[in-house]
């Protein structure tokens, strides 16, 4: 189990990690995700020991390891560039950490053989990295990590160098490996699809703080704030400015300039009235052309994918995205009427904090 307690990092006067608390349980596949510059890689390097920790505690299996040198932490890391030594063979690359420790050659060969077996690299042990495909290099990099039998493996955007087809394949492969090795993994990526598909736990980072941490589906269905709401899910959640009023106890009325007017149960019963933001995912807006919806808008862009159709409606600069099942024959310029799924509405205050989560009416 790894614990980060109020961890901070400064570059000069600039605070890049602003008091982060994260817990990753044994055997968990945790993904740190966030836009570039959010501090996710810095955090990973702090766990690895490649960056110092200015404040707070880093605890691995009950032991504070802030000041333990990187190689004594029992942590292995797979680098974004893989960092395979071009002058060594696959076997030498995988066995490098053992040979530094002066482990006898026969023992190194045995362990390298075992690791190669798991990673299906047995036939490539005598090759140099330059003679391998992208996926094979990736596996060598993983081999170099797991031969150390680490209690934690760190991945720094490991799939960003691969083409998209290989990326999908490696995602499945990494999940298989994780199941087989039962290792604890911390994985950094800026790609929320990678995070959603692989993680047991997602930690969304934004500007050096944890925006939200939890199971992918919890983050998807019940985001704590506007940042997580729009970051998780593709296409991203629509955010509509609305005016909140309370015409009667226990009910909330939402209105905006486009003629939207809906009424929701005030589940938390404490939502303030006034300016707020309605968050609604593209799949929770229903298209009709009969004028019976909650509001209507002009279609700007139509993307027909066959099995589904994406519409961008409203202002061309900041459109609302709608996902509709099937192939719709709507053209840009048409007016459509949209119905909001009332059970899937998120409400955020003007600071982006959630004030009402989706619930049945």
């Amino acid at each position: 189990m790894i614990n980060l307690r109020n961890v901070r990092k400064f570059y000069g006067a600039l605070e890049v990690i602003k008091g982060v608390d994260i817990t990753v349980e044994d055997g968990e596949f945790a993904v740190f995700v966030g836009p570039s510059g959010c501090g996710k890689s810095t955090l990973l390097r702090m766990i690895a020991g490649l960056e110092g920790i200015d404040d707070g505690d880093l605890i691995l299996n009950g032991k504070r390891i802030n000041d333990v040198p990187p190689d004594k932490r029992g942590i292995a890391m797979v680098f974004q560039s893989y960092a395979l030594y071009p002058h060594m063979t696959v076997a030498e690359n995988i066995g490098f950490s053992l040979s530094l420790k002066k482990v006898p050659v026969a023992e190194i060969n045995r362990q390298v053989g075992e690791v190669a077996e798991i990673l299906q690299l047995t036939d490539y042990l005598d090759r140099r990295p330059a003679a391998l495909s992208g996926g094979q290099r990736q596996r060598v990099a993983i081999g170099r990590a797991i031969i150390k039998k680490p209690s934690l493996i760190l991945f720094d955007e490991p799939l960003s160098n691969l083409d998209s087809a290989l990326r999908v394949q490696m995602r499945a492969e990494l999940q298989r490996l994780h199941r087989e090795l039962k290792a604890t993994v911390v994985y950094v990526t800026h790609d929320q699809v990678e995070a959603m598909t692989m993680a047991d736990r997602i930690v969304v980072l934004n500007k050096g703080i944890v925006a939200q941490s939890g199971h992918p589906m919890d983050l998807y269905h019940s985001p704590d704030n506007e940042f997580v709401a729009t970051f998780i899910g593709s296409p991203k959640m629509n955010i509509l400015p609305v005016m909140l009023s309370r015409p009667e106890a226990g009910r909330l009325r939402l209105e905006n300039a486009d003629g939207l007017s809906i009424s929701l149960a005030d589940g938390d019963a404490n939502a303030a009235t006034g300016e707020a933001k309605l968050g609604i995912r593209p799949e929770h807006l229903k298209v009709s052309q009969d004028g019976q919806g909650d509001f209507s808008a002009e279609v700007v862009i139509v993307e027909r994918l066959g099995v589904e159709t994406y519409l961008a409606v409203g202002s061309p600069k900041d459109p609302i995205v709608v996902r509709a099942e099937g192939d719709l024959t709507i053209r840009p310029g048409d007016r459509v009427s949209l119905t909001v799924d009332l059970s899937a509405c998120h409400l955020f205050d003007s600071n982006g904090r959630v004030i009402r989560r989706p619930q049945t009416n």
Partner: protein
Amino acid sequence: MTDFALDKPGKSRRPDLMAYATLSLISAFCAVPFFWVLLASLDGNAQLFLSWPREWTLNNYVRVFAEEDGARWVFNSLFVVGSATLLVMVLAGLGGYALSRTRAWWKQPFLYAILLIRVLPPTALVVPLYKILLTLNNIEGNLVRMVIGGDHARAIMRWIGFIDGYLGLILVLATMQLPLALWIMKTFFDGLPRDYEEAAVMDGATMLQRIRRVLIPLALPGLAAAGLFAFISAWGDFLLPLILLSSPELQTLPLGLFRAFLRVNTIDYGFLAALAFIYLMPAVIAFGFARRFLVQTFSGGVKG
């Protein structure tokens, strides 16, 4: 349409032919002196003008080593230039790494300042350089005589003297070559991801292990390129040995060649050509090695 399509290759063939003809002419023009040197060195009766030898002989080469001090000149040249090259490679390797990794404010000014050494003609600095080296040499000479006594002082000063000694020439030659080598190595290390070192740190490599097992093997193409540049350039230097060396036993190849040319009696072209050919060889061989590393170093660095 078909006519036009068929016509096109024919039209482009003539300019190609012209280009090849011109290039061949230029190549021949450049190659003639080398050819002359090779022919004349094997000619028993070489003349100033290029002619096919009537009698083939290796006698000219034999004379370089048997009658003259050729072997010593070759040794002096190889020793001085080789030592300077080795020094340049060590300093450029360490310095280039530091310059690549540091974020110090003086990095850019420093890099441009050292290029000045390369830009200024050494001839312009010969007098002050000689003066400084002479002062150092006198101080050093006095110290040596004090410690060891006058008997062996000259023998020692021949190795470690700043004037008329190997050390002085090695240091000056290395200084001349170091700026370019530093630039090459700095650029090379810039292209080498830090991930390699950090991966080694994670694997538990000490500083020495990182240098020996990761950095040196990775930097080898760059070091080879920097070293070969330094070697080729220092090998061709004539002015500095001429000024800094005076003892006959310290003569280098270019000086031997120069003095053989200046002899009062008639010029022995066969002998000169043989000496010149010997002088050419190391540079040509070095370039042959360099080509591979140059391509690697200047067209994309290390491929993982």
